[in-house]
């Protein structure tokens, strides 16, 4: 074959392909617009049906194309709803057959269908699906396992706590996903969580510590204090964070001791993240006895001094609030008034400027 022939063949292929591509592009655009208009129209027609279902799901007739559209709209609304509204819409989907189909879908051979089914069942809070979803924590597809764990959290059945922790231990599901699922299940799973604090698995201990802190399980404080010297770095930090969130003053002496220890260890073994977590937690608890060690931290690296400034700022702000002088707006928090009065004069002035850096995390919104 000559070079010319090769080019001629290429030209022939291109002359067939290019018009086809142009036509496909136009067709796709037209078809998208048509589908979009049709969907908008259906939504318009069926919205009253769905809204009515929020009050009385049994009165809705789901036959015909409007029924199918109502189901689709209801399913898309579910993740945003809670309580009776969610239950009513879930009932509507149960009657219409969408949830039974989704439960069937958990056993589908196609991973995409298993995942979509798990997502819907979780959004609907469908307890009947909990056992099937727990089995899916061992699914061969990683995304399906993650979705199943999230769904179990949304369903909120405390019986799901052991399989979730087991999946975490075997690295089948990420710590982040399990911790969120446990948070959604809430204090109903407290017993299992307390046991998990003593687990052999550092992953499980860390997640259990974080969750007990976020759930406010005060009874876990002694165990969390023990975990401050855990051999695992993540677990230690989780325990510190948990104690800070719990805000129990009795934990302060232990946290101070750990921070003092960190501040004198040789630089090679110094754990910056751990020390920062200790400082932050002391600030959250807000006991005056922590002020000297926080002042000491102000003289260290930027990252530590900044965390200490934030902690002192938070303590000052809380004290000012507590004294009921006047409500503190965000600007006031950064003035010298928000620095604890127990601090030495020189440090107080220094911190007053550094405090301006105090970072205000955006509030977490557990919905």
């Amino acid at each position: 074959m000559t070079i010319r022939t090769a080019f001629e063949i290429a030209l022939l292929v291109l002359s067939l392909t290019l018009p086809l591509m142009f036509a496909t592009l136009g067709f796709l655009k037209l078809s998208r617009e048509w589908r979009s208009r049709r969907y908008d129209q259906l939504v318009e027609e069926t919205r009253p049906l769905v809204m009515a279902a929020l009050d009385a799901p049994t009165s809705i007739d789901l036959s015909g194309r409007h029924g199918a559209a109502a189901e689709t709209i209801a399913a898309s609304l579910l993740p945003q709803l809670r309580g009776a509204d969610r239950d009513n819409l879930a009932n509507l989907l149960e009657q219409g057959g969408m949830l039974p189909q989704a439960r069937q879908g958990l056993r589908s051979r196609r991973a995409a269908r298993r995942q979509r089914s798990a997502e819907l069942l979780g959004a609907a809070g469908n307890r009947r699906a909990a056992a099937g979803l727990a089995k899916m924590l061992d699914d061969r597809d990683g995304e399906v396992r993650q979705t199943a764990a999230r769904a179990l959290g949304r369903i909120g059945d405390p019986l799901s706590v052991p399989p979730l922790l087991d999946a975490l231990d075997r690295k089948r599901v990420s710590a982040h996903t399990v911790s969120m699922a446990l948070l959604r299940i809430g204090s109903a799973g407290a017993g299992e969580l307390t046991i998990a604090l003593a687990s052999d698995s550092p992953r499980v201990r860390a997640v259990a510590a974080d969750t007990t802190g976020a759930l406010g399980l005060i009874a876990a404080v002694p165990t969390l204090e023990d975990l401050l010297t855990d051999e695992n770095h993540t677990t230690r930090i989780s325990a510190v964070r948990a104690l800070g969130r719990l805000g129990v003053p009795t934990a302060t002496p232990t946290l101070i001791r750990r921070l003092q220890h960190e501040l004198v260890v040789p630089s090679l073994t110094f754990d910056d993240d751990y020390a920062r977590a200790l400082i932050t937690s002391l600030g959250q608890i807000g006991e005056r006895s922590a002020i000297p060690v926080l002042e000491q931290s102000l003289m260290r690296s930027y990252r530590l001094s900044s965390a200490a400034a934030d902690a002192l700022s938070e303590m000052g702000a809380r004290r000012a609030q507590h004294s009921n002088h006047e409500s503190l707006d965000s600007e006031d928090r950064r003035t010298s008034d928000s620095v604890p009065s127990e601090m030495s004069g020189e440090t107080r002035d220094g911190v007053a400027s550094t405090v301006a850096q105090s970072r205000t995390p955006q509030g977490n919104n557990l919905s």
Partner: protein
Amino acid sequence: MKEVAIDLLSALDWLVLFYFLVLNTSYLMLVLAAARQAGHSLRRGPTSNYDDIFANPATPAVSVVMAAYNEEACVVESVRAALGLRYPEFEVIVVDDGSSDRTFERLRAEFDLAEVAPAVDPDVGTLGAMRSMHASTTDDPLVVVRKVNVQKRSDAINAGLNVAQYPLVCCVDADSILEADALLRVVEPFVDDPDRVIATGGSIRAINGSPVYRGQIGEPQLPRGWLARIQVLEYLRSFLLGRSGWSGFGGLLIISGAFGLYRRDALIDIGGFDTDSLAEDADATIALHRRAIERGDDYRIVFVPDSVCWTEVPSSRSDLARQRRRWSHGLFQVMSKHRRVIGNPRYGRVGIVAMPYYLLFELLGAVVELVGVAAVVLGLALGVVSIDFAILFAVVAIGFGIAVSLSALLVEEVIYHKYRSWPDLLRLVAACLLENLGYRQLHAWWRLQGLADAFGNREPEWGEIHRAGFAAEQPAPQPPR
């Protein structure tokens, strides 16, 4: 003599034809791989994971580091966009890299900055000294670092890295706007696979012409000029679909400096961004690959296509030429610095496939492209190539280019659908044609100049890229879907 010339030119033609075939086939394969991944996400349906990431107290906090040099036209909008990100806990660190315009003054006025004591123990070295540090006295988690300019963006990012407090560091440009949930999306691989993921990158799109209101981008629109419109297409093909394809293959070599998220400890481990490099983003990504592979780590570097950063692209020819010359020069530096990796089986797919590909097609592509054109012209001059063959050659080369761009446009229309109007679609189709009729050849010339600069060890031209700022007139924009 003429027979020898004919033989030589014929061999060269075959070589060029083979090269173009492999190049365009690889482009098409990358586009198809990206389409396959995007299709996979579509089939899986909407996920509640982003809500969970937002609500979970265990979500890692992020330090957003933004380097700014003479960005008075857009810095306030960019910072506002960063502060408005939907994310549970983060800080924004703006590094004012010795701006000579009113970049700092605009920030100080807008966010009521107060000077704080800059007692920083650097984790990575910096060349330009820190002049001062300022924190917002409004309720915003904002820190501004002022430093001496040494004409190296990487130095500014390193200064921000030293101040960053959180375990993840997100690098963004001050002329860019992140979509509100961009951080939630780009952090997802870190929370789903925290033991392995060390870096993620989002997609970059051109913001020119799109309305911005209070740091939020409205309904995306195509830029007015054809130069910027062609770049929209180029970014779509190379920065979105190309990187998506490489990421799926495990060979992502570039996380754009305009939007990348890294584990802070991993960046510190490689010594931060290389201040000698003109392509510090690619250099850092390859250094992260190398470090992880050499230590035998099981790691991932992931591209997240639906996490979007909108950035202002050069709209004048001189600005664009300067940018592309610098990119080409930078790529040469990176390939030269990491030459041990090229073709080295020890580095797996990165060494055997990705690095050789970048060397042959991204770095040397301009040379081959222009050699091909020169061969045809020479052939015509010597009378060994007929005019109809030269036309055939040109039509096939251009046709292939158009087909690749159209395939990228098809994926955009099916999966992402950012530009919604018919006129914008038609303009993009026209850009597919124009890109291959002049722009591509010009681009190859600029890349060649960049290579010549690199070989000649010449200092790159920096110069400022003219910023028009963001169009802010739209009162109530629709969020992009």
